[in-house]
């Protein structure tokens, strides 16, 4: 107990210094935040989409504590969206849209041209034409793409650009992601009685099962391929005109249990992304339900998964449901959309 107090006092004294040392644009507001900043600062890089000073959406990287924010695309004639690192962090994939095309929170994986680049944004190469390879995602060794179109799923060999396998879509319609172990995909599906369900599909057998139903979106995998992070909105009387706020949840991929991770009064939470070691989660969100990509976006957040559940704001109904929820330590990161995290150092190298 004394040791914890001493550490707290120590951090309290030095956290402004830590902030300066890390070149942070977001100063810690408490010793706990300073401690979390120090804890994650050197854990690789985050890539995200955000408005540049020219008004277009570019890709940026920053340290997980929000420092060292750097524009890595600088393409005023295009909007860039949905960046994802390869599993080893050496490569980057994203969609490039024309400047006059607004990023659609439900369709971004189908929009624009697929681009593959080095993880620092250099050597960008387009892959196909506008709208090709919709919802494309890499497998573990970056040799194949998993794509989803109205006709169904397809696995594409990147070197030959040939389709090596197809299988039925089974109601999946957006935000599909290939699991780290290559055996599953998770996405948003309409085939479980309610729209916007989160479902998992076994790539070998094609069998699909619901993970969580009713008004869910932006699912992503934990590194163990056995758990899923996702957003879920439950309508609550008296909250946001009875509409409720979208919250960040986790569930086992078999859909047997779920747990609240983070909820905030006054903001929908989207784009959950778990750190490569499974200990932290990134997210973004906005007052606007679609994440507001047509505007300026919202600050990203980072928290320890071990602190979950965390509730921010005066949501009494939620607090009654989750009496053990804390207010947690949550870092406020730069404005960003659909972040992705790698522990590799290569994104920050020239």
């Amino acid at each position, binding site marked *: 107990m004394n040791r914890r107090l001493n550490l707290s006092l120590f951090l309290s004294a030095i956290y402004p210094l830590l902030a300066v040392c890390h070149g942070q644009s977001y100063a810690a507001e408490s010793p706990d935040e300073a401690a979390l900043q120090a804890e994650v600062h050197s854990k690789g890089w985050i890539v995200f989409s955000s408005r540049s000073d020219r008004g277009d959406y570019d890709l940026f990287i920053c340290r997980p504590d929000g420092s060292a924010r750097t524009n890595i695309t600088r393409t005023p004639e295009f909007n860039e969206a949905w960046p994802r690192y390869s599993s080893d962090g050496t490569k980057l994939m994203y969609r490039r849209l024309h400047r006059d095309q607004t990023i659609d929170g439900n369709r971004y994986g189908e929009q624009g041209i697929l681009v593959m680049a080095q993880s620092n944004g250099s050597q960008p190469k387009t892959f196909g034409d506008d709208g090709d390879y919709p919802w494309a995602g890499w497998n573990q060794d970056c040799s194949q793409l998993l794509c989803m*179109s109205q006709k169904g799923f397809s696995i594409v060999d990147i070197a030959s650009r040939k389709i090596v396998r197809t299988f039925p879509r089974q109601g999946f*319609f957006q935000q599909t992601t290939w699991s780290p172990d290559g055996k599953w995909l998770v996405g948003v599906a309409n085939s479980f009685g309610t729209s916007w369900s989160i479902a998992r599909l076994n790539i070998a057998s094609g069998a699909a099962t619901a993970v969580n139903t009713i008004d869910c979106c932006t699912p992503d995998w934990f590194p163990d391929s056995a758990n899923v992070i996702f957003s879920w909105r439950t309508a609550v009387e008296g909250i946001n005109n009875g509409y409720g706020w979208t919250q960040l949840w986790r569930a086992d991929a078999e859909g047997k249990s779920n747990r609240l991770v983070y909820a905030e009064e006054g903001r929908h939470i989207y784009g959950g992304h778990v750190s490569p070691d499974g200990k932290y989660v990134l997210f973004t969100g906005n007052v606007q339900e679609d994440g507001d990509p047509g505007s300026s976006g919202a600050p990203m957040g980072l928290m320890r998964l071990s602190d979950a559940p965390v509730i921010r704001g005066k949501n009494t109904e939620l607090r009654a449901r989750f009496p053990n929820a804390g207010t947690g330590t949550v870092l406020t990161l730069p404005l960003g959309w659909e972040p992705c995290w790698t522990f590799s150092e290569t994104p920050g190298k020239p």
Partner: protein
Amino acid sequence: MRIQTSKLALVAALGLFSVSCGGKANSGTDARMSDYGTVEVTARLVEVPTGAIFHRELYNYATILKYQIVAVHRGKVPDNAIIYVGHYNPWKPRAEAADSRVKNIGGDSRQFRAGQLQRMALETPMDDFFMGGIVDKYFGRHTGPAYWAVRTNDAD
């Protein structure tokens, strides 16, 4: 004299109105109906379930509605069958429902009312023609693929 002329005009107008209203029933077809879909039916909308149609600005979706077949004009559908039809963004008049994501849908129906007779050009299975959110209040209560409404006109 003036009054008599006015009365005559009124009677004539009422007569014309009566002929118009009591005339040929609206079959619901139009010049383009047969160009769309692989199935064409006239069917009665059985009901509009609570929560099946709502307007939410950021959500484009299709809702599944239940119909009783009255006549089959093209394609193979059993007479008097119950079919389930997906309509895109059902809160919009059909003529205004198409957008950049879902093209080539239309018709003259302005809204969906229980008991309404509609003539529809349909495709099936719906999944081959629409990739998006679906509100299905009949989930688990019907088998077989749903139809996708390409063109929807009101009929009498």
